[in-house]
């Protein structure tokens, strides 16, 4: 019996995880039923589905947002398990995410089994109970459709999904769920063995415990601990104590106890699972982290928002200080030097990371079969930049083993296997990883995945300069990649883009604008622009604006299709380039908008023009030029940013025909496919003309802004900036009887931009943004 493709999903248990999973299923455009129990002691006439409904309400207010759009929220049908169990009958996948109690789970499975359609997949989101215990006593037919799907919190944003198949689970059930999770939910599926904590939490909890216990034992200040067990190892800067504050201190004793209960006596974890009286006291007093009164760090509001950190020795809060770790300076970028540093901090680094990496090696063959599964789990489950085996490679396998032996820590068999080698290597342009048997095998991407990083292993760029590269990605398609810091747009990028367009015209079929940075582009390089403004190099700045416009325009009217494929932030000039491509194929997690007013400027690379064009062409607004101008003015003058690709569609930054890719790994392949689909018979768009209202609209918009200023909602410089934005959007000195050309709008943008960049208010905004990362409200 084959498993049908998943078209409808049910989630049972509307707690944080269950509700979050349901919301994310809805984000994929799939209808989802969310059930929980009938509230106990419900008064007569009370809502029997109140728990699930309440969960949906909470989801709508969640920050960061759980839903990608308002439309997604409508796909969730809340209900209760007693009255609505029948809703499961047409679901293709049923996810159980209730409390971690075997008896309750098993009785629920019996109920599910009674109504579910044959061949539907059932999975548990358990993080602690082994699969074989969950299906014990249940029918073989149920066990055949049953698996563990372990999501990470928050389900929308964490890309890891650990999947465990039991001995009886049919491969089809695993592949159907995995396929849906990959393509529709955008998850990276890592196959785990049925072992406690699976991979990420097994290792992650060990790591956290080791870091806490060693900090207590050695007397390391928590700021220093987070500075050591953080950035230097490619671990997020929250480090350990900052992370615990985020997840909640109260969670740890439960997780520790369940892991300890399930792991064999000889497991290394037990030595690190020691009670910490201070933490117990903190939990008891409500200091459970950010959700409570504070955690290891807190903001003391009584003292006027003073940041404080706890002193592990005394248990008292004191003023938070900057980390002071001379070992980091001495070690430079060498992890080996840091681990060997003869200092308190060096010992701490070794005791924590040496132990963690030793443990990671022991998990090979136990929690997972392959080292790259463990690396992927830590990268995506804990946001480490490098997995544990990539870290060991950096330290050097032999050196690491020698240190383990000296420290009396266990040396896992895989480390012996890797003696004299490394865990990863590049061979014939392919990335390979070392197997338990000592043989090298290719690191295989899921089918259909295309990554620039892989292409780079065996190719040289067609064109390249300091800030951008052009790659051949096959089938006549090229990929234009930004390579500058934060992918900020600078003259080099504009220059190479111009060259690339000319080259593609001659020798290729289509172009994709894509990169694999964490942000697509944060916009123009403000540092360069501010420096130029500070030395009054006005012609240079004007040239930068004009050449950007000319190049973006060339992109738009190129005789071949161009597809922008953003992921992460695409702001300012990064948003404008999207709108100048023939089409957009965006990762679902794309955050885009014209944010220039935040730095006192206006979109000068055709952003004003493009939004006007898009709203005129596709927007469902009342007739006449004024509603479009008003709408676009609102977006630009308040620097609205779409919080997802779905929202970008609502905001018309993306057109209705543009595509959304849920899985980050599949973005380039989707963009390339889209580009190729457009090649045949491709004709560049016609140049638009605009009917714009002119000066009357400008003064109308200014009056509205003046009103906000009186209410204190707009600052004095907002008024200045908004006026220039209004001047461009209303078409300058035109009126409705005279059509405005595209080139005239480019010109208006340029003029407005040049006036603003000369104002001290705008320069102060740019400087403030560069120095603090926050907008200045002047």
């Amino acid at each position: 019996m084959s498993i049908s493709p998943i078209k409808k999903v049910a989630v049972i248990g509307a707690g944080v995880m269950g509700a979050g999973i349901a919301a994310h299923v809805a984000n994929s455009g799939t209808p989802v039923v969310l059930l929980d129990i009938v509230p106990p002691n419900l008064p007569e006439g009370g809502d029997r589905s109140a728990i699930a409904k309440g969960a949906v309400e909470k989801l709508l207010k969640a920050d960061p947002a759980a839903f990608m759009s308002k439309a997604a929220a409508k796909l969730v049908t809340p209900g209760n398990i007693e009255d609505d169990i029948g809703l499961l009958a047409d679901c293709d996948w049923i996810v159980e995410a209730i409390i971690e109690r075997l008896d309750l789970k098993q009785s629920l499975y019996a109920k599910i089994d009674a109504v579910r359609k044959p061949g539907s997949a059932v999975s548990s989101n358990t993080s602690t109970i082994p699969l074989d215990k969950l299906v014990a006593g249940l029918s073989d037919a149920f066990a055949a459709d049953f698996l563990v799907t372990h999501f990470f919190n928050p389900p929308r944003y964490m890309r890891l999904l650990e999947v465990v198949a039991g001995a009886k689970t049919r491969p089809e059930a695993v592949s159907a769920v995995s396929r849906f999770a990959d393509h529709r939910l955008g998850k990276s599926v890592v196959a785990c063995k049925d072992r406690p904590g699976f991979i990420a939490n097994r290792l992650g909890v060990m790591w956290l415990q080791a870091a806490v216990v060693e900090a207590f034992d050695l007397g390391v200040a928590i700021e220093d601990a987070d500075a050591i067990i953080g950035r230097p190892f490619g671990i997020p800067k929250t480090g350990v104590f900052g992370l615990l504050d985020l997840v909640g201190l109260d969670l740890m004793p439960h997780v520790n106890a369940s892991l300890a209960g399930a792991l064999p006596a000889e497991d290394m974890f037990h030595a690190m699972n020691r009670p910490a009286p201070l933490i117990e006291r903190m939990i008891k007093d409500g200091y459970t982290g950010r959700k409570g009164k504070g955690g290891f760090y807190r903001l003391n509001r009584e003292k006027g928002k003073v940041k404080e950190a706890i002193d592990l020795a005394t248990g008292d809060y004191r003023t938070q200080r900057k980390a002071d770790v001379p070992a980091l300076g001495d070690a430079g970028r060498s992890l080996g030097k840091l681990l060997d540093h003869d200092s308190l901090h060096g010992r701490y680094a070794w005791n924590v990371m040496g132990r963690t990496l030793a443990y990671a090696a022991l998990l090979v063959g136990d929690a997972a079969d392959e080292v790259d599964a463990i690396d992927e789990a830590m990268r995506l489950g804990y946001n480490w930049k490098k997995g544990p085996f990539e870290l060991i490679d950096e330290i050097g396998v032999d050196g690491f083993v020698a240190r383990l032996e000296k420290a009396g820590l266990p040396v896992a068999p895989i480390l012996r296997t890797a003696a004299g080698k490394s865990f990863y290597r590049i061979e014939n342009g392919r990335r390979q990883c070392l197997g338990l048997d000592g043989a090298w095998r290719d690191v295989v991407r899921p089918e259909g995945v295309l990554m620039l990083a892989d292409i780079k292993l065996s190719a040289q760029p067609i064109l390249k300069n300091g800030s951008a590269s052009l790659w051949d990605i096959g089938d006549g398609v090229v990929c234009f990649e930004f390579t500058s810091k934060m992918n900020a747009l600078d003259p080099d990028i504009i220059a190479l883009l111009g060259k690339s367009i000319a080259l593609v015209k001659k020798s290729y079929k289509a172009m994709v604008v894509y990169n694999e940075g964490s942000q697509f582009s944060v916009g123009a390089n403000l540092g360069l622009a501010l420096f130029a403004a500070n030395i009054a190099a006005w012609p240079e700045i004007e040239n930068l604006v004009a050449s950007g416009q000319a190049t973006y325009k060339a992109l738009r009217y190129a005789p071949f299709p161009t597809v922008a494929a953003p992921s992460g932030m695409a702001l300012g000039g990064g948003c404008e380039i999207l709108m100048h491509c023939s089409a957009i194929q965006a990762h679902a997690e794309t955050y885009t908008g014209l944010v220039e007013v935040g730095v006192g400027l206006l979109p000068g690379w055709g952003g004003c023009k493009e939004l006007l064009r898009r709203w005129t062409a596709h927007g469902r607004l009342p007739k006449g030029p004024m509603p479009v101008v008003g709408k676009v003015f609102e977006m630009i003058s308040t620097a609205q940013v779409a919080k997802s690709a779905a929202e970008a569609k609502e905001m018309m930054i993306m057109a209705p025909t543009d595509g959304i890719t849920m899985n980050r790994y599949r973005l380039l392949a989707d963009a390339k496919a889209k580009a190729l689909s457009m090649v045949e018979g491709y004709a560049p768009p016609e140049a638009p003309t605009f009917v714009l209202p002119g000066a009357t609209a400008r003064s109308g918009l200014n009056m509205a802004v003046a009103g906000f200023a009186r209410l204190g909602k707009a600052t004095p410089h907002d008024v200045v900036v908004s006026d220039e934005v209004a001047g461009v959007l209303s078409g300058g000195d035109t009126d409705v009887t005279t059509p405005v050309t595209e080139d005239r709008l480019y010109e208006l943008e340029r003029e407005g931009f040049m006036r603003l960049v000369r104002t001290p208010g705008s320069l102060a905004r740019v400087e403030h943004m560069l120095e603090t990362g926050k907008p200045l409200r002047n």
Partner: protein
Amino acid sequence: MPLYKAPLRDMRFCLYELMDGDALTELPGYEEFGRDLVDPVLEEAAKLCEEVLFPVNRSGDEEGCAYENGVVRTPKGFKEAYDQFRDGGWTSIACDPAYGGQGLPFAVDTLITEMICSSNLSFGMYPGLSHGAYVSLSGYGSEELKAKYLPRMVEGVWSGTMCLTEPHCGTDLGLLRTAAVPNGDGSYAITGTKIFISAGEHDLTENIVHLVLARIQGAPKGVKGISLFLVPKYLVKDDGSLGARNGAVCGSIEHKMGIKASATAVLNFDGATGWLIGEPGKGLNAMFAMMNTERLAVGMQGLGLAEVSRQNSVLYARDRIQGRSISGTKAPDKAADPILVHPDVRRMLLTQRAYIEGCRALGQWVATSLDIAKHHPDAMKRQEADDLVFLLTPIVKAFMTDVGSEVTNLGVQVFGGHGFIREHGQEQYVRDARITQIYEGTNGVQALDLVGRKMPAHAGRYLRRFFHPVQAWIEANMENEALAEFVQPLAKAFVRLQQATGQIARVGMAKPDEAGAASVDYLRLFGLTALAYLWGRMVEVSLPKIGTDEDDGFYAAKVATARFYMERLLPETGWRFSNIMAGGKSIMAFPDDAF
């Protein structure tokens, strides 16, 4: 015998006509400093400098200071001159009225500093160092220390020093070793050796207050571990009277190329009692407060020496007859024409004049900005002015002392063989000027400060305070035909400066050696352009006044000097620019062993 006459006419021009000296009275704290008060002060200062300080300048140079058993004797006449200087209240003019000072604006004080440096730089070192110590102590000292020491220092009864340098550590203060050990009563025992301490020991004042950089026991290595201490020569009792001799003793004084009447001491601290100024480990902050004002003052030293050398050059060129003009006899009644008629002598005199008047304007711009930075009620204005002072400080220090050296050398050249003879005084100015390019941070260090610190700070915000007004002035006067011959060369130099700035910012970010290799040329380019801007503005002020009642030939000379500057000095920006754009490869690629 050399002469000196304070250039009050040009000083007033800078203060009141080029800058808006009358507007100083609008700044809180400066209400009373109108012309009716300032003009007499300047005249009195001129008189003092011409009649009291100048006459002991050359004799002081000849005699030098004498050292014997830890005691230093200043040259004959210095003590008497100092008494007059102090009794006239000149030690207190630029100090806070809260400590008995007169609170004179920097714009005015700067002019007086120039006069002192012209008339007798060695003498000026003594009150100059006191003022530096005053700035640090008043900015960072505890109320108790300030109350105990400042009034007497302001009064000039006690003097001050700044003790930074040690035998093994000059520019790199992170290396310093002088140790401070807590005595348990809040004071510290200071032990170590300091060298090159100007005014470190002398017979002009009753007490000397040394400000000493030292490392508290257990403090970290490098500059973070440095603290600043107050160590008096004589301990001061609670009633303010002098007590026991402290363990800070002068071991010897240096034998120097110039400023020979300024005592440059080796000071040995042997468990001397000292008190912490400011916070532990923050010694450099307090020191740099002093350093910044001192760097401006050193720039004025360069200017002062240039001015006195120029005055004597002009007198000599008028007086000395030698040869005939190559275009025909100019003084048929004499045996020969005065050398003033010869083109190259005129070139030298004009070079001196154009640099000096330009630098005086530059000094005045910075001093006025400093007044605004300290006194303006609007925080934004204060910050803008402060930014400009930060930016221009290394230029004032290095450019103006380089000019001092060049101009005093020309002063010797105009005199011919007599310039080489001590009795004529011109050679002393060359020797005295030489140190100004070295101390308070060598001019190379100033250039690094400009490209390494001032340029990149806040993505170039300090630069904005210079580039924007200059650009705005050029734009405003582009169409002005009368100014065209001045605006166009300025605009050309300004574009070079912009391009060089962009180039250094771009390349220097990735390759610091490139920025370092360009730095000295860049500072010079910057200084030349700044002077061109100020010359443009001086012409703008002067042109309308030519031929009016106010005119006494002064304005026509201004415009003519400006023309010389634009045509004959500003073009140096071309080769400086070429140097910068050539990059540092030929400098850095040279093998170390081959030097």
